[in-house]
Protein backbone atom coordinates (compact mmCIF):
# COMPACT_ATOMS: atom_id res chain seq x y z
CA UNK A 1 0.00 0.00 0.00
CA UNK A 2 1.37 3.39 -0.98
CA UNK A 3 1.41 5.53 2.16
CA UNK A 4 0.73 9.13 1.32
CA UNK A 5 -0.76 11.52 3.87
CA UNK A 6 -4.31 10.73 2.78
CA UNK A 7 -3.88 6.98 3.30
CA UNK A 8 -2.19 7.60 6.65
CA UNK A 9 -5.13 9.76 7.71
CA UNK A 10 -7.56 6.95 6.86
CA UNK A 11 -5.39 4.57 8.92
CA UNK A 12 -5.25 6.89 11.91
CA UNK A 13 -8.85 8.11 11.72
CA UNK A 14 -10.98 5.63 9.79
CA UNK A 15 -14.10 7.40 8.56
CA UNK A 16 -17.57 5.96 9.24
CA UNK A 17 -16.26 3.13 11.47
CA UNK A 18 -18.84 1.57 13.76
CA UNK A 19 -22.47 0.56 13.62
CA UNK A 20 -25.51 2.55 12.53
CA UNK A 21 -28.43 2.12 14.94
CA UNK A 22 -30.88 3.64 12.44
CA UNK A 23 -29.71 1.54 9.48
CA UNK A 24 -32.48 0.29 7.21
CA UNK A 25 -30.21 -2.30 5.55
CA UNK A 26 -26.89 -4.00 6.06
CA UNK A 27 -24.75 -6.37 4.03
CA UNK A 28 -21.60 -8.39 4.42
CA UNK A 29 -18.51 -9.05 2.32
CA UNK A 30 -16.62 -12.11 3.42
CA UNK A 31 -13.35 -13.88 2.68
CA UNK A 32 -14.08 -17.56 3.38
CA UNK A 33 -10.39 -18.44 3.21
CA UNK A 34 -9.30 -16.47 6.27
CA UNK A 35 -12.58 -15.57 7.99
CA UNK A 36 -12.16 -11.83 7.40
CA UNK A 37 -15.37 -9.91 6.90
CA UNK A 38 -16.78 -6.42 6.44
CA UNK A 39 -20.28 -5.36 7.46
CA UNK A 40 -21.77 -2.25 5.86
CA UNK A 41 -24.72 -0.46 7.45
CA UNK A 42 -26.70 2.02 5.36
CA UNK A 43 -29.51 4.40 6.03
CA UNK A 44 -31.33 5.24 2.81
CA UNK A 45 -33.31 8.44 2.89
CA UNK A 46 -36.62 7.62 1.31
CA UNK A 47 -38.54 10.90 1.25
CA UNK A 48 -36.81 12.08 -1.93
CA UNK A 49 -37.59 11.48 -5.60
CA UNK A 50 -34.50 9.32 -5.81
CA UNK A 51 -33.61 7.57 -2.55
CA UNK A 52 -29.98 8.07 -1.54
CA UNK A 53 -27.58 6.82 1.11
CA UNK A 54 -27.55 9.59 3.69
CA UNK A 55 -25.66 7.62 6.36
CA UNK A 56 -23.23 4.74 6.08
CA UNK A 57 -20.98 2.90 8.53
CA UNK A 58 -18.79 -0.19 8.49
CA UNK A 59 -17.18 -2.65 10.84
CA UNK A 60 -14.54 -5.15 9.93
CA UNK A 61 -12.67 -8.18 11.09
CA UNK A 62 -9.65 -7.67 8.91
CA UNK A 63 -6.32 -6.00 8.34
CA UNK A 64 -5.39 -2.32 8.10
CA UNK A 65 -5.74 -2.41 4.30
CA UNK A 66 -9.37 -3.44 4.73
CA UNK A 67 -9.95 -0.58 7.16
CA UNK A 68 -8.44 1.96 4.75
CA UNK A 69 -10.56 0.56 1.89
CA UNK A 70 -13.66 0.69 4.10
CA UNK A 71 -12.93 4.25 5.16
CA UNK A 72 -12.36 5.44 1.57
CA UNK A 73 -15.22 3.60 -0.10
CA UNK A 74 -17.82 4.51 2.52
CA UNK A 75 -16.81 8.15 2.10
CA UNK A 76 -17.36 7.74 -1.65
CA UNK A 77 -20.71 6.01 -1.16
CA UNK A 78 -22.13 8.58 1.24
CA UNK A 79 -24.72 10.74 -0.57
CA UNK A 80 -24.99 8.45 -3.62
CA UNK A 81 -28.28 7.19 -5.00
CA UNK A 82 -28.67 3.41 -5.10
CA UNK A 83 -27.69 3.39 -8.78
CA UNK A 84 -24.71 5.58 -7.91
CA UNK A 85 -23.64 3.10 -5.23
CA UNK A 86 -23.93 0.22 -7.71
CA UNK A 87 -21.80 2.17 -10.20
CA UNK A 88 -19.22 2.78 -7.46
CA UNK A 89 -19.06 -0.96 -6.74
CA UNK A 90 -18.73 -1.79 -10.43
CA UNK A 91 -16.01 0.81 -11.01
CA UNK A 92 -14.12 -0.46 -7.95
CA UNK A 93 -14.32 -4.06 -9.15
CA UNK A 94 -13.01 -3.05 -12.58
CA UNK A 95 -10.14 -1.20 -10.96
CA UNK A 96 -9.32 -4.23 -8.82
CA UNK A 97 -8.97 -6.46 -11.88
CA UNK A 98 -5.69 -4.64 -12.58
CA UNK A 99 -4.26 -5.49 -9.16
CA UNK A 100 -2.68 -8.73 -7.94
CA UNK A 101 -5.35 -10.84 -6.15
CA UNK A 102 -3.67 -10.46 -2.75
CA UNK A 103 -3.86 -6.65 -3.06
CA UNK A 104 -7.42 -6.71 -4.41
CA UNK A 105 -9.07 -8.99 -1.83
CA UNK A 106 -9.53 -6.39 0.93
CA UNK A 107 -11.09 -3.71 -1.30
CA UNK A 108 -13.22 -6.35 -3.03
CA UNK A 109 -14.58 -7.38 0.36
CA UNK A 110 -15.64 -3.78 1.11
CA UNK A 111 -17.14 -3.22 -2.37
CA UNK A 112 -19.13 -6.47 -2.11
CA UNK A 113 -20.38 -5.47 1.34
CA UNK A 114 -21.70 -2.19 -0.11
CA UNK A 115 -23.37 -4.14 -2.92
CA UNK A 116 -24.84 -6.56 -0.36
CA UNK A 117 -26.25 -3.69 1.71
CA UNK A 118 -27.84 -2.02 -1.33
CA UNK A 119 -29.26 -5.35 -2.55
CA UNK A 120 -30.61 -6.07 0.93
CA UNK A 121 -32.28 -2.66 0.98
CA UNK A 122 -33.95 -3.31 -2.39
CA UNK A 123 -35.03 -6.82 -1.37
CA UNK A 124 -36.58 -5.39 1.80
CA UNK A 125 -38.75 -3.08 -0.28
CA UNK A 126 -40.54 -6.25 -1.38
CA UNK A 127 -40.15 -8.22 1.85
CA UNK A 128 -39.35 -6.22 5.02
CA UNK A 129 -38.08 -9.38 6.74
CA UNK A 130 -35.55 -10.19 4.02
CA UNK A 131 -32.31 -11.30 5.72
CA UNK A 132 -29.00 -9.49 5.24
CA UNK A 133 -27.16 -10.56 2.11
CA UNK A 134 -23.55 -11.80 2.20
CA UNK A 135 -21.23 -11.98 -0.80
CA UNK A 136 -17.91 -13.79 -0.85
CA UNK A 137 -14.70 -12.49 -2.43
CA UNK A 138 -13.16 -14.20 -5.43
CA UNK A 139 -9.65 -12.83 -4.85
CA UNK A 140 -7.28 -14.64 -2.50
CA UNK A 141 -5.30 -12.37 -0.18
CA UNK A 142 -2.55 -14.96 0.32
CA UNK A 143 0.46 -13.84 -1.75
CA UNK A 144 1.34 -16.36 -4.51
CA UNK A 145 4.77 -17.08 -3.01
CA UNK A 146 3.24 -18.03 0.36
CA UNK A 147 0.46 -20.03 -1.26
CA UNK A 148 3.06 -22.05 -3.19
CA UNK A 149 5.04 -22.65 -0.01
CA UNK A 150 1.88 -23.83 1.73
CA UNK A 151 1.13 -26.23 -1.12
CA UNK A 152 4.60 -27.71 -1.13
CA UNK A 153 4.55 -28.18 2.63
CA UNK A 154 1.98 -30.97 2.37
Amino acid at each position, binding site marked *: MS*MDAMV*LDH*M*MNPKNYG*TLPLANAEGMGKNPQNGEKVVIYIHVKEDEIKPYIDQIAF*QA*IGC*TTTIVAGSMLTEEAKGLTLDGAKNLVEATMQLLEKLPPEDAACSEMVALAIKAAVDTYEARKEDPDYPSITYQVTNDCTPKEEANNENTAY
Partner: protein
Amino acid sequence: MKTLLIKTHEVWLEMLMAGFMSHTQNRQTLYDFSDILFRHFTWIEHEMIERKEAYDYDRDIIPIKVDRLSDMLKAITTHLLDLKLQLLGMENKALASRITSDLTYMVSVLGRMNDEVITAFSMERQMPNMQLSEEARDALTLFLFDESYKEYELIMVYNYLKAHSDDAYLNRIFQILIDESFFHLKCFGDMMAKMGILAVPRIIMKELYQVEDVVKFLKDGIEEELAAKEECKKLSDAVGNDSKELSDFFDFINAQENYHIDLMKDALAYYARGAHE
Protein backbone atom coordinates in the same frame (compact mmCIF):
# COMPACT_ATOMS: atom_id res chain seq x y z
CA MET B 1 -24.19 0.93 34.93
CA LYS B 2 -23.82 0.31 31.21
CA THR B 3 -22.91 3.96 30.62
CA LEU B 4 -20.42 3.79 33.48
CA LEU B 5 -18.72 0.79 31.86
CA ILE B 6 -18.57 2.48 28.45
CA LYS B 7 -17.23 5.75 29.86
CA THR B 8 -14.63 3.92 31.97
CA HIS B 9 -13.54 2.01 28.84
CA GLU B 10 -13.14 5.28 26.96
CA VAL B 11 -11.22 7.13 29.67
CA TRP B 12 -8.93 4.12 30.20
CA LEU B 13 -7.93 4.34 26.52
CA GLU B 14 -7.65 8.14 26.65
CA MET B 15 -5.26 7.87 29.60
CA LEU B 16 -3.21 5.22 27.82
CA MET B 17 -2.99 7.36 24.68
CA ALA B 18 -1.91 10.35 26.79
CA GLY B 19 0.87 8.14 28.18
CA PHE B 20 2.05 7.35 24.65
CA MET B 21 2.04 11.07 23.78
CA SER B 22 4.19 12.13 26.72
CA HIS B 23 7.99 12.47 26.38
CA THR B 24 8.61 13.11 30.08
CA GLN B 25 8.19 11.54 33.51
CA ASN B 26 4.45 12.20 33.12
CA ARG B 27 4.42 9.09 30.95
CA GLN B 28 4.82 6.51 33.72
CA THR B 29 2.13 8.16 35.86
CA LEU B 30 -0.28 8.18 32.92
CA TYR B 31 0.48 4.50 32.23
CA ASP B 32 -0.10 3.63 35.89
CA PHE B 33 -3.39 5.54 35.91
CA SER B 34 -4.51 3.80 32.72
CA ASP B 35 -3.76 0.43 34.39
CA ILE B 36 -5.89 1.47 37.37
CA LEU B 37 -8.73 2.55 35.06
CA PHE B 38 -8.59 -0.81 33.30
CA ARG B 39 -8.97 -2.50 36.68
CA HIS B 40 -11.98 -0.25 37.40
CA PHE B 41 -13.39 -1.41 34.07
CA THR B 42 -13.05 -5.06 35.11
CA TRP B 43 -14.62 -4.38 38.53
CA ILE B 44 -17.64 -2.65 36.97
CA GLU B 45 -17.90 -5.49 34.45
CA HIS B 46 -17.83 -8.04 37.28
CA GLU B 47 -20.53 -6.11 39.11
CA MET B 48 -22.71 -6.17 35.98
CA ILE B 49 -22.21 -9.92 35.56
CA GLU B 50 -23.12 -10.47 39.21
CA ARG B 51 -26.28 -8.43 38.69
CA LYS B 52 -26.98 -10.23 35.40
CA GLU B 53 -27.00 -6.95 33.47
CA ALA B 54 -26.35 -7.21 29.73
CA TYR B 55 -23.28 -5.36 28.48
CA ASP B 56 -20.81 -5.22 25.63
CA TYR B 57 -17.53 -3.54 24.74
CA ASP B 58 -19.03 -0.96 22.37
CA ARG B 59 -17.87 2.61 22.87
CA ASP B 60 -17.69 5.90 21.01
CA ILE B 61 -14.85 7.04 18.77
CA ILE B 62 -12.23 8.70 20.99
CA PRO B 63 -10.73 11.92 19.61
CA ILE B 64 -7.11 12.25 20.72
CA LYS B 65 -5.45 14.57 18.19
CA VAL B 66 -4.07 17.44 20.28
CA ASP B 67 -1.15 19.85 20.01
CA ARG B 68 -0.43 20.01 23.73
CA LEU B 69 -0.67 17.43 26.50
CA SER B 70 -2.67 19.89 28.62
CA ASP B 71 -5.53 19.72 26.06
CA MET B 72 -5.67 15.94 26.46
CA LEU B 73 -5.44 16.16 30.26
CA LYS B 74 -8.30 18.68 30.34
CA ALA B 75 -10.50 16.32 28.32
CA ILE B 76 -9.55 13.37 30.56
CA THR B 77 -10.23 15.41 33.71
CA THR B 78 -13.70 16.33 32.42
CA HIS B 79 -14.41 12.65 31.74
CA LEU B 80 -13.11 11.57 35.16
CA LEU B 81 -15.41 14.11 36.82
CA ASP B 82 -18.31 12.82 34.72
CA LEU B 83 -17.48 9.31 35.94
CA LYS B 84 -17.59 10.49 39.54
CA LEU B 85 -21.11 11.81 38.95
CA GLN B 86 -22.13 8.50 37.37
CA LEU B 87 -20.78 6.64 40.40
CA LEU B 88 -23.21 8.47 42.69
CA GLY B 89 -25.98 6.28 41.32
CA MET B 90 -24.12 2.98 41.82
CA GLU B 91 -25.84 0.58 44.21
CA ASN B 92 -22.60 -1.04 45.36
CA LYS B 93 -21.46 1.89 47.50
CA ALA B 94 -18.21 0.23 48.60
CA LEU B 95 -17.12 -0.23 44.99
CA ALA B 96 -18.26 3.28 44.05
CA SER B 97 -16.29 4.73 46.96
CA ARG B 98 -13.13 2.81 46.04
CA ILE B 99 -13.26 3.99 42.42
CA THR B 100 -14.20 7.57 43.37
CA SER B 101 -11.20 7.81 45.67
CA ASP B 102 -8.87 6.78 42.81
CA LEU B 103 -10.51 9.24 40.40
CA THR B 104 -10.22 12.12 42.86
CA TYR B 105 -6.50 11.49 43.24
CA MET B 106 -6.01 11.19 39.47
CA VAL B 107 -7.75 14.53 38.87
CA SER B 108 -5.48 16.24 41.40
CA VAL B 109 -2.30 14.75 39.86
CA LEU B 110 -3.34 15.56 36.27
CA GLY B 111 -3.95 19.15 37.35
CA ARG B 112 -0.32 19.46 38.49
CA MET B 113 1.31 17.88 35.44
CA ASN B 114 3.69 19.97 33.36
CA ASP B 115 2.54 20.71 29.84
CA GLU B 116 4.25 19.19 26.80
CA VAL B 117 4.22 19.80 23.06
CA ILE B 118 2.79 16.73 21.31
CA THR B 119 4.45 15.23 18.22
CA ALA B 120 2.53 11.94 18.18
CA PHE B 121 0.39 13.03 15.19
CA SER B 122 3.07 14.60 12.98
CA MET B 123 2.89 11.73 10.42
CA GLU B 124 6.65 12.10 9.90
CA ARG B 125 7.18 8.35 10.33
CA GLN B 126 10.75 8.66 11.53
CA MET B 127 12.12 6.72 14.49
CA PRO B 128 14.47 8.77 16.67
CA ASN B 129 18.14 8.00 15.96
CA MET B 130 17.29 5.55 13.17
CA GLN B 131 17.47 5.90 9.41
CA LEU B 132 14.85 3.60 7.92
CA SER B 133 14.39 3.03 4.19
CA GLU B 134 10.97 3.88 2.76
CA GLU B 135 10.22 0.17 2.37
CA ALA B 136 11.11 -0.48 6.02
CA ARG B 137 9.03 2.49 7.18
CA ASP B 138 5.99 1.31 5.20
CA ALA B 139 6.35 -2.23 6.54
CA LEU B 140 6.71 -0.95 10.08
CA THR B 141 3.72 1.40 9.71
CA LEU B 142 1.40 -1.36 8.51
CA PHE B 143 2.67 -3.73 11.19
CA LEU B 144 2.05 -1.19 13.97
CA PHE B 145 -1.52 -0.46 12.87
CA ASP B 146 -2.35 -4.15 12.43
CA GLU B 147 -0.73 -5.34 15.64
CA SER B 148 -1.72 -2.50 17.98
CA TYR B 149 -5.35 -3.25 17.10
CA LYS B 150 -4.70 -6.98 17.47
CA GLU B 151 -3.21 -6.58 20.96
CA TYR B 152 -6.18 -4.44 22.06
CA GLU B 153 -8.52 -7.07 20.63
CA LEU B 154 -6.68 -9.83 22.52
CA ILE B 155 -6.84 -7.88 25.79
CA MET B 156 -10.60 -7.49 25.40
CA VAL B 157 -11.24 -11.07 24.24
CA TYR B 158 -9.22 -12.66 27.05
CA ASN B 159 -10.72 -10.23 29.53
CA TYR B 160 -14.22 -11.24 28.42
CA LEU B 161 -13.36 -14.94 28.70
CA LYS B 162 -11.84 -14.39 32.13
CA ALA B 163 -14.85 -12.35 33.31
CA HIS B 164 -17.14 -15.24 32.39
CA SER B 165 -15.03 -18.06 33.84
CA ASP B 166 -14.66 -19.23 37.44
CA ASP B 167 -11.93 -21.69 36.49
CA ALA B 168 -8.67 -20.76 38.25
CA TYR B 169 -6.49 -22.77 35.85
CA LEU B 170 -7.90 -21.07 32.74
CA ASN B 171 -8.05 -17.65 34.36
CA ARG B 172 -4.33 -17.85 35.17
CA ILE B 173 -3.67 -18.45 31.46
CA PHE B 174 -6.05 -15.68 30.37
CA GLN B 175 -4.45 -13.22 32.81
CA ILE B 176 -0.94 -13.96 31.53
CA LEU B 177 -2.14 -13.44 27.96
CA ILE B 178 -3.81 -10.13 28.96
CA ASP B 179 -0.59 -8.96 30.64
CA GLU B 180 1.54 -9.94 27.65
CA SER B 181 -0.81 -8.16 25.24
CA PHE B 182 -0.70 -5.05 27.42
CA PHE B 183 3.08 -5.08 27.19
CA HIS B 184 2.97 -5.44 23.40
CA LEU B 185 0.28 -2.75 23.06
CA LYS B 186 2.42 -0.35 25.11
CA CYS B 187 5.51 -1.11 22.99
CA PHE B 188 3.63 -0.60 19.72
CA GLY B 189 1.73 2.50 20.92
CA ASP B 190 5.01 4.02 22.05
CA MET B 191 6.54 3.40 18.61
CA MET B 192 3.46 4.82 16.85
CA ALA B 193 3.71 8.00 18.93
CA LYS B 194 7.44 8.30 18.14
CA MET B 195 6.65 7.92 14.42
CA GLY B 196 3.85 10.49 14.59
CA ILE B 197 1.09 8.02 13.71
CA LEU B 198 -0.61 7.44 17.05
CA ALA B 199 -4.20 6.18 16.79
CA VAL B 200 -6.76 4.61 19.10
CA PRO B 201 -7.45 0.96 18.20
CA ARG B 202 -10.82 0.60 16.54
CA ILE B 203 -13.94 -0.76 18.26
CA ILE B 204 -14.12 -4.55 18.37
CA MET B 205 -17.00 -6.45 16.78
CA LYS B 206 -19.07 -8.34 19.35
CA GLU B 207 -18.69 -11.71 17.68
CA LEU B 208 -14.95 -11.58 18.36
CA TYR B 209 -15.21 -11.51 22.15
CA GLN B 210 -18.63 -13.04 22.75
CA VAL B 211 -17.00 -16.35 21.90
CA GLU B 212 -19.41 -19.25 21.41
CA ASP B 213 -16.81 -21.93 20.70
CA VAL B 214 -13.72 -21.41 22.88
CA VAL B 215 -11.93 -24.45 21.43
CA LYS B 216 -12.25 -23.07 17.89
CA PHE B 217 -11.22 -19.64 19.17
CA LEU B 218 -8.07 -21.08 20.73
CA LYS B 219 -7.23 -23.10 17.60
CA ASP B 220 -7.69 -20.00 15.40
CA GLY B 221 -5.70 -18.00 17.95
CA ILE B 222 -2.74 -20.37 17.65
CA GLU B 223 -2.84 -19.95 13.85
CA GLU B 224 -2.93 -16.17 14.30
CA GLU B 225 0.03 -16.24 16.68
CA LEU B 226 1.97 -18.29 14.11
CA ALA B 227 1.07 -15.68 11.47
CA ALA B 228 2.16 -12.90 13.86
CA LYS B 229 5.50 -14.67 14.33
CA GLU B 230 5.92 -14.69 10.56
CA GLU B 231 5.09 -10.96 10.40
CA CYS B 232 7.67 -10.25 13.13
CA LYS B 233 10.28 -12.22 11.21
CA LYS B 234 9.49 -10.39 7.96
CA LEU B 235 9.66 -7.06 9.73
CA SER B 236 12.89 -7.96 11.48
CA ASP B 237 14.38 -8.81 8.05
CA ALA B 238 12.94 -5.62 6.48
CA VAL B 239 14.48 -3.32 9.10
CA GLY B 240 17.57 -5.44 9.75
CA ASN B 241 19.82 -3.50 7.38
CA ASP B 242 18.73 -0.15 8.83
CA SER B 243 18.51 -0.83 12.54
CA LYS B 244 19.84 -3.73 14.57
CA GLU B 245 18.00 -2.33 17.61
CA LEU B 246 14.64 -2.59 15.88
CA SER B 247 15.45 -5.95 14.35
CA ASP B 248 16.38 -7.32 17.80
CA PHE B 249 13.10 -5.96 19.20
CA PHE B 250 11.00 -7.79 16.64
CA ASP B 251 12.99 -11.00 17.17
CA PHE B 252 12.20 -10.61 20.88
CA ILE B 253 8.46 -10.15 20.18
CA ASN B 254 8.61 -13.13 17.82
CA ALA B 255 10.10 -15.31 20.57
CA GLN B 256 7.43 -14.15 23.04
CA GLU B 257 4.72 -15.47 20.71
CA ASN B 258 6.08 -19.00 21.35
CA TYR B 259 5.05 -18.67 24.98
CA HIS B 260 1.58 -17.41 23.99
CA ILE B 261 1.15 -20.39 21.69
CA ASP B 262 2.19 -22.76 24.50
CA LEU B 263 -0.33 -21.14 26.84
CA MET B 264 -3.11 -21.46 24.30
CA LYS B 265 -2.18 -25.10 23.64
CA ASP B 266 -2.28 -25.62 27.38
CA ALA B 267 -5.79 -24.12 27.56
CA LEU B 268 -6.83 -26.20 24.55
CA ALA B 269 -5.63 -29.43 26.21
CA TYR B 270 -7.47 -28.42 29.38
CA TYR B 271 -10.69 -28.00 27.38
CA ALA B 272 -10.07 -31.24 25.47
CA ARG B 273 -9.95 -33.30 28.65
CA GLY B 274 -13.11 -31.58 29.89
CA ALA B 275 -11.36 -30.30 33.00
CA HIS B 276 -13.17 -26.95 32.80
CA GLU B 277 -16.61 -28.52 33.35
